[in-house]
């Protein structure tokens, strides 16, 4: 679910360019919560919901940057419906998300990019569902979100049930591990991922020698290191985010643990290498997203260049997903859909090549895509290895 700028920006742009002719000035305020005002080819308002401040703000800003870029490119085209953006800052807090979701309804936004995290999705999505506002999450991966029968909910990345078993199979088959230690950070995401890995490892016949859970805010993980070390596992899998992963990998290596360190998309960030230092080298990180560094696709490269030009930083975690999620909604608007439920119908049937991956939803709003990609840390840099069938770790 990260840094996934595979081909297709051009395709997306082309598709929307074609569709916009159908749109023209066809903005008729249809429906109870249609768009208001008009300029040029009409106008509409969409919302972004996610953290803009607070401890996890960086992820939210990565996404909202992607959203802004998509909007800028869209609005720059002549004759299109001008789409405005309202940002709803949740600070990553599920209770704030409910307040903000209701605010979005009063603001009559026609669609939402977000909510960004799984926790806030759980509290905000029932509200959007009842109000009938389509929402496309660029980053919420909790499995349970798809199991509520929500009609207006979608996400542009695969859930943790794709990643966890895929990681376990990779550990068993490609890495040929006999024993493993699985550690999680007690967060919803980290524990969910680690539990999925634990379950599949047992099926694959890999012995899970150590199970442990750390407090990601703690400084010392010595008790975990002391558990892992005598077991001497071939692989240490960590379910959690990059800052704890950086601390953990360093303390494991300093403590004399030799096994390969592996983690999921929450760790796929340069900050992991920054925290882990030399100990991070050789670590394997999985993601249901592809990577810009591994892509020679001009559309993806254009996205990366445009992004860098606009924000003066490289696209980071979920930026491409934010971009794709926004484009899915923009295509619906360009197709002349102004009513939230019409936009939802359009988005549900959408099928285009985004910069992160092919964007096509199944009946539950899940992405119809289950590839898992591996990145290795080599010489202090993230090196993309391809999907799990092609990836050949150097260690």
């Amino acid at each position, binding site marked *: 679910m990260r840094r996934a700028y595979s081909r297709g920006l051009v395709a997306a742009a082309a598709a929307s360019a074609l569709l916009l002719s159908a749109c023209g000035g066809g903005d008729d305020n249809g429906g109870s919560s249609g768009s208001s005002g008009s300029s040029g080819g009409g106008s509409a308002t969409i919302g972004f919901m996610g953290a803009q401040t607070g401890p996890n*703000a960086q992820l939210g800003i990565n996404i909202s940057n992607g959203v802004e870029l998509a909007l800028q490119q869209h609005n720059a085209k002549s004759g299109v419906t001008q789409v405005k953006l309202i940002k709803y800052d949740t600070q990553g807090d*599920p209770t704030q998300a*409910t307040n903000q*979701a*209701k605010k979005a309804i009063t603001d009559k936004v026609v669609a939402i990019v977000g909510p960004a995290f799984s926790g806030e999705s*759980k509290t905000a999505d029932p509200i959007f569902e009842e109000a009938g506002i389509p929402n496309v999450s660029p980053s919420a991966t909790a499995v349970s979100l798809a199991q509520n029968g929500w009609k207006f909910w979608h996400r542009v990345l695969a859930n943790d049930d794709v990643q966890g078993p895929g990681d376990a199979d990779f550990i068993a088959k490609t890495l040929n591990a006999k024993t493993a230690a699985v550690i999680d950070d007690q967060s919803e995401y*980290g524990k969910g991922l680690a539990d999925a890995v634990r379950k599949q490892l047992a099926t694959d016949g890999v012995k899970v020698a150590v199970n442990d859970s750390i407090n990601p805010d703690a400084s010392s993980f010595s008790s975990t290191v002391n558990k892992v070390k005598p077991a001497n596992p071939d692989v240490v899998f960590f379910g959690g985010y990059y800052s704890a992963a950086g601390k953990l990998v360093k303390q494991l290596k300093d403590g004399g643990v030799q096994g390969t360190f592996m983690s999921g998309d929450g760790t796929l960030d340069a900050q992991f290498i920054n925290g882990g230092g030399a100990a991070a080298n050789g670590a394997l990180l999985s993601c249901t997203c592809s990577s810009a560094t591994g892509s020679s696709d001009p559309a993806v490269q254009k996205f990366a260049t445009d992004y860098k030009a606009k924000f003066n930083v490289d696209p980071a975690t979920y930026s491409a997903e934010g971009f794709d999620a926004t484009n899915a909604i923009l295509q619906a608007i360009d197709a002349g859909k102004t009513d939230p439920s019409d936009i939802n119908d359009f988005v549900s049937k959408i099928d285009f090549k985004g910069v992160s991956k092919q964007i096509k939803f199944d009946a539950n709003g899940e992405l119809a895509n289950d590839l898992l990609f591996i990145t290795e840390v080599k010489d202090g840099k993230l090196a993309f290895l391809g999907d799990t069938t092609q990836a050949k770790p150097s260690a």
Partner: protein
Amino acid sequence: MSALTGMRSRVRFPDFIGILGAWWDRRRWYGRWTVYLLTIIGAFLLPAPAIGSFMTPEADWPSVLFYPIGIYVLLAIGLNVVVGQAGLLDLGYVAFFAIGAYTLAVFTTKHGWNFWAVLPAGIIICAAAGLILGTPTLRLRGDYLAIVTLGFGEIIRITANNLDYTGGPRGISPIPHPPSDRSFEIFGVTPLRYGVIDAKPYYYLLLVIIIVVIIIVKRLEKSRVGRSWSAIREDEDAAELMGVPTFRFKIGAFIIGAAIGGSAGVVFASQTTSITPVNFPFILSALILCAVVLGGSGNLLGVILGAFLIAWLPERFRGFEEYRVLTFGAALVIMMIIRPEGLLPSRQRRAELAEGTGGMGALGGEAGPVADQRVEADDDLVSGHLPEVLAGRDDREGGA
């Protein structure tokens, strides 16, 4: 605070509260009831969009009124019983909020109970939790109690995070809403329609609970119980000597505080539909304590004002974005420097302070901290500061 310095500091601030209080004291019963009634009507009219557009232009006002504002107010009233009235420093009050919320979540999702059945059950379970925590720990004094309650709050949160029964870090969702009556409508509002979009019914529910709690707490404060709490707060040993069963009353304060916190948790969980351990961090305990002290520990009106400000200001000033917490921290320090007794200090407490018999500083009933050191009594002790030094002796309960 000594008589001398007490007067000195009061000269600096016009005594609005004293004037207002005197006015209030002159009202007859009908005058007071008119004010009560107007306040309640005002509270019911509060979610109006016209007010909301000013109060929180960037968030849904009825939702904000429910959480954080209403919930913080209820929690602060509950914590005020423990901290403000009985003088027990509780740094883990969020534990009872969490227990209440989890009680509702577990009983409605796993056992099919209805909200109205869980509400009393949650209150009873929280009261029991207060009893269980209080019995071994309330023999401790002052800051020992603080750290133990802090630990209790953390234990509850971590346990909820570790147990599969409570859903671990995933928490529990979806939590059903209270049974609704969609047809009942009054002034264009459907106050019994508990859905996800309209927060007003929840606000009204919470408002009713807050009013009931205020009545109970106020009755207690005026009764023998309230006087015993004051006695314990001011000087536990003296209270014990005068025949106040201090331990029993301390447990009582703890249980009542816990029950109020639990009721807030039950209502909160039913509205938010999804709870996880992350909802109940230590920092929430600290914020509610800030609300109590900022508003004026011991004074119900002050505490409500404090909770309102703590909950509302960050929502109002969303534009500040990343400077919000910074400003909040600085504001707390400045407020405490300007008005250490809180925005609306309790009049009874002020009277006690003026008499120089201690007061807020007697927190936890331990022998007091250092005297305040207004006196530069280094080597020139004899050069004329003696009276103040002597006055300082009264300050043992009131120092920094």
